[in-house]
């Protein structure tokens, strides 16, 4: 062992051996653990932290405290559910970035300790890349290269994915994320946090063409959602000044119209990217991909444009360790392990350790 050098818990993997990994995700307000064998998810457990709902957003210190109490039960349940013993594990994977640093630190520290204690290698996973690969976990799987629109509470990205470990962001939001646009709108409407799913629900009974909101002009494949937020704020203020119960009376139509606008904005750039690259394998990922309107619209565009469209299973849309483990499995195959001195980082560097 070399004290001055870096400590790498490497072990040669004999060919044809099954590979079983434990993955830990703690980037935001969900503590999740998954067990993955040969790329197949055997268990994917997610502990939500309901506590944040009463504060109208994720409170970082509370999230860190909750991870500390969730981590052992969640990991233990994932292993039990998968029927896997600790000593059958070949590597420990964890979300290294991006995310809330206090939250990431709990998962990372726990994962590092497990790797040392079990004397197996450690795999650091980039959360946003794992979101993209969530599309490859189950059948039907997209073939490479594919485009992925990743839409979550913190990110909005169009990713060109050439291989499991070879992907590139070709467009992203320059201000708010799409999920934030949903959540902030919901807040303006007096709906509880997280508002995205509620807007989705009301939108289903509303008329999406009733109200009109501006579409931003942003070059390339980039996005902007801050203008929309402001437009909605002024719109609601004006209407409510005239009729104090405007929101109450028109909730489904407002939700449907706002949702339609967000979806239009998202799809416009995705369509442009597909046309420019000639790629017809098109995926969505991230928490907002649970949105029914977005899913429906993606399938319609696919029909119209001859795309093959993919949407991950719901459990792999929001933050989950299953996708972290799936990505880690491919890092394992590529020998992309990390040394024991790795630290998490809040702002993820896209060019990370795995390749």
């Amino acid at each position, binding site marked *: *062992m070399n*004290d001055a050098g870096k*400590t790498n*818990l490497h072990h040669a993997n004999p060919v044809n051996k099954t590979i079983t990994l434990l993955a830990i995700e703690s980037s935001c307000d969900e503590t999740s653990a998954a067990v993955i064998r040969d790329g197949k998810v055997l268990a994917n457990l997610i502990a939500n932290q309901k506590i944040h709902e009463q*504060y*109208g957003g994720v*409170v970082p*210190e*509370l999230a*860190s*405290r909750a991870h*500390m*109490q969730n*981590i*052992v*039960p969640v*990991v*233990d349940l994932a292993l039990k559910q998968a029927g896997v013993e*600790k000593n059958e594990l070949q590597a420990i994977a964890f979300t290294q970035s991006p995310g809330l*640093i*206090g939250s990431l*630190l*709990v*998962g*990372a*520290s*726990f*994962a*590092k*300790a*497990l*790797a*040392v*204690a*079990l*004397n197996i290698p450690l795999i650091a996973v980039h959360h946003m890349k794992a979101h993209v690969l969530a599309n490859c976990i189950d059948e039907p799987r997209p073939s490479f290269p594919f485009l992925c629109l990743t839409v979550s509470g913190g990110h909005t990205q169009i990713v060109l994915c050439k291989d499991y470990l070879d992907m590139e962001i070709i467009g992203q939001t320059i201000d708010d994320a799409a999920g934030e646009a949903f959540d902030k709108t919901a807040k303006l409407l007096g709906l509880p946090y997280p508002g995205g799913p509620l807007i989705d629900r009301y939108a289903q009974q509303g008329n999406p063409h009733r109200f009109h909101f501006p579409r931003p002009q942003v070059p390339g494949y980039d996005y902007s959602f801050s203008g929309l937020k402001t437009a909605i704020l002024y719109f609601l203020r004006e209407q409510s000044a005239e009729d104090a119960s405007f929101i109450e009376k028109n909730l489904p139509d407002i939700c449907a119209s706002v949702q339609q606008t967000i979806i239009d904005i998202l799809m416009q750039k995705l369509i442009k990217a597909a046309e420019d690259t000639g790629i017809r394998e098109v995926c969505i990922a991230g928490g907002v991909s649970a949105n029914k309107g977005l899913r429906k619209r993606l399938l319609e565009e696919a029909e119209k444009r001859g795309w093959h469209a993919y949407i991950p299973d719901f459990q792999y849309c929001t933050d989950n360790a299953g996708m972290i483990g799936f990505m880690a499995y491919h890092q394992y195959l590529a020998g992309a392990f990390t040394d*024991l*001195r*790795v*630290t*998490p980082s809040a702002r993820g560097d896209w060019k990370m350790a795995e390749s």
Partner: protein
Amino acid sequence: MARLILIDTATAAGSVSFAEEGRVVASFGHSQAEDHAAYIADYVYRGLSQLQLNGTAIDAIAVSAGPGSYTGLRVGLSTAKGLCYAWNCQLILLPTMEIMAAGYRQLHPEIHEPGFLVPVLKSRKNEVYAALYKTDGTTIEPARPVQLDEEDFSTWRNYLPMHVFGEGADRIINKLQPLSVKIALDTTYQLHASHMAELAERAFCSGQFADLAYAEPFYLKPTYVGK
């Protein structure tokens, strides 16, 4: 005989020690808080290699549980939980200020007359954490946040002679020095995992174990949530 791993990341300096029957057999450390997340697991790996031990030889992991920096405390405790879970061994939480008092006594065997020990750590602006122990280790007041502007320091005169030490001690020098010549201040004391050895051994022998799943650092304060 208990073989224990001791972890302290409550303040900027972080360290890991290995102890056998209360005696320290290996130690590793750093002085920057940014290094906690990078090094603590690595120290455990290095200690095991150096001592040629594997996990089955470890009886418990003891952690310095606070008060201290929330982030530091969480790195220490999450690491300890990972080790305990993997090895099915016991978890011991030790109050950081008791560790400081034990460490101070160890470093100052010349203190034998009855008196009082007051470990002090920095908290935020205008606040420190402090606790009050007898020199024999008995707790008079457990750790608490002390507001520098509100605290009635004159009551501290009831506990003389007093040894005030720790990295927060310099913040209260000017409050305490005028009170009595029997208050000794030492700002050089540095917390270290090795100072946990005796306390951890005692906790192990008397079976004072923490619940692995639900153990939390001693935050001392609820979360402040701004709206």
